């Protein structure tokens, strides 16, 4: 079986996002970019399924600018077999990404799509669900455990209040949560091997096009700042301030 893993290049999670002074967005010039952490978890899960002999081929796909090739290369170094970049500088909205991924699925014919639950730039948490809907496939989001069999996949999901386990007929879309696995670091030999793997470069028009945006970002601003308060010396002082000054206990 073939597994498709969509991966997104985002601001590295260790870097604090800075809003541009003209309020047009977040400043991404000369800052460290990396694979979205949830996508890394998705790649890791796909590679583990392949290592268990449950999958034959893993294709990593990204929609993004030229340097998104590096993100795909990271997936290849982790163990994906080949890559596909739908190259655009447009930063398409989740709906447009989902539509292009649908066209990729139709061209590639995977039995399973594993992807991140959320990209930590836009924090949308939407593409996986939309892709599943557009394909009329079942979905299991926020996965913390994936058990794959011939015609179905059993997924334990992190939900408010605890865990839920579902079984989906394949083909299906699964989105990864934090505790699904701990992604590996690519070893040097695997990084070298990944250099020989192919990445096809295509344009949005090869997969239905970018279409007209439904959303317009009017401005991006800084959130109100919290000012640091005071340091207290003792627990007793803390309690007295919480009672008399803050009035919260």
């Amino acid at each position: 079986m073939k597994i498709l893993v969509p991966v997104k290049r985002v601001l590295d999670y260790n870097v604090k996002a800075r809003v541009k002074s003209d309020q047009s967005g977040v400043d991404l010039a000369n800052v460290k970019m990396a694979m979205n952490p949830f996508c890394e978890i998705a790649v890791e899960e796909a590679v583990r399924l392949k290592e268990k002999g449950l999958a034959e081929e893993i294709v990593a796909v990204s929609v993004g600018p030229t340097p998104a090739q590096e993100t795909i290369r990271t997936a290849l170094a982790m163990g994906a077999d080949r890559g596909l970049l739908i190259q655009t500088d447009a930063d398409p909205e989740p709906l447009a990404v989902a539509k292009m991924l649908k066209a990729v699925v139709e061209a590639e014919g995977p039995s399973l799509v594993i992807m991140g639950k959320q990209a930590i730039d836009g924090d949308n948490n939407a593409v996986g669900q939309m892709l599943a809907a557009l394909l009329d496939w079942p979905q299991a989001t926020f996965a913390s455990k994936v058990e794959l069999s011939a015609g179905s996949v059993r997924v334990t999901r992190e939900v408010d209040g605890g865990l839920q386990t579902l079984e989906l007929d394949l083909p299906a879309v699964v989105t990864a949560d934090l505790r699904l696995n701990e992604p590996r670091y690519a070893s040097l030999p695997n990084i070298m091997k990944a250099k020989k793997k192919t990445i096809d470069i295509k344009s949005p028009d090869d997969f239905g096009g970018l279409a007209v945006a439904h959303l317009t970002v009017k401005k991006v601003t800084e959130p109100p700042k919290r000012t640091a308060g005071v340091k207290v010396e003792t627990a007793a002082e803390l309690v007295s301030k919480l009672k008399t000054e803050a009035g919260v206990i």
Partner: protein
Amino acid sequence: MAVLVFADHDNTALKDNTHKTVTAALALSGDVDVLVAGKGVAGVAAEAAKIAGVRKVLTAESDALGHQIAEALAACVVPLMANYEALLVPATSVGKNFAPRVAAALDTAPISEIIEVVDGSTFVRPIYAGNALETVSSADAKKVITVRPTAFKAAAEGGSASVSAVDPGPGAPKTRFISEELVKSDRPELAAAKIVVSGGRAMGSAEEFQRVIEPLADKLGAAVGASRAAVDAGYAPNDYQVGQTGKVVAPQLYVAIGISGAIQHLAGMKDSKVIVAINKDADAPIFQVADYGLVADYKAAVPDLMTALDTVKA
């Protein structure tokens, strides 16, 4: 325009997230209906009918809806959207799971976790773990929006809406519910609690987490939260996680114990009214957002705190 609000409930009780989402909906329109989709939800629907400002309550019932399966919820909601210009869904794990499915079926771009309604088509939402706020406007005729409940006040009681049943739809033929493990607790629910006490990696073990954090929470009548590090290490259940990718809380009082204050954690709690941090590292970033900081080893500070609370309450 008419707006449909998706009710948050557990088939037994209506949750406050619904009232908060109704407030966001009333900022868009005077014609607000509430959908209660589930199994055996007559009682929940009766509660929803009492929310002030609600025009009518719709109920939809089936086994798949009872388990809040995304495919079933979307299949039920999509046809209803013929009568509405917007769907507002609380940004819970259920809401985030199914709302984008509805959006895709309507060829609409979903708008996630709004914290403000600017006008009928413009909304504010946090991005980059809350380090930036995006004002976004939608050209879609029908809008699909998830609402961050902590950003809106709960709508009042005092309504008397009618209740009627609608078609539950075809269920989820390709998805089977297998099981559910819900954490049982007598404490207030994390997302809705007035006080939250959270523990971090510093706890070192599940036993220590229970020994230190839980009695303090009990004394304060608080819900218990945790950092990702504490959850990953198994000190606390996964649904205790507060942060960018866990729960977002905004209580009157948030007490962070042995938590460094990574941006992903701050994303989930920095809108709390009062923040207290106890950390032995005076340079921990949590102190940059804390109203009251105590630089101390929690092993000494928490027992002192328990004693001081007894004194002040006595």
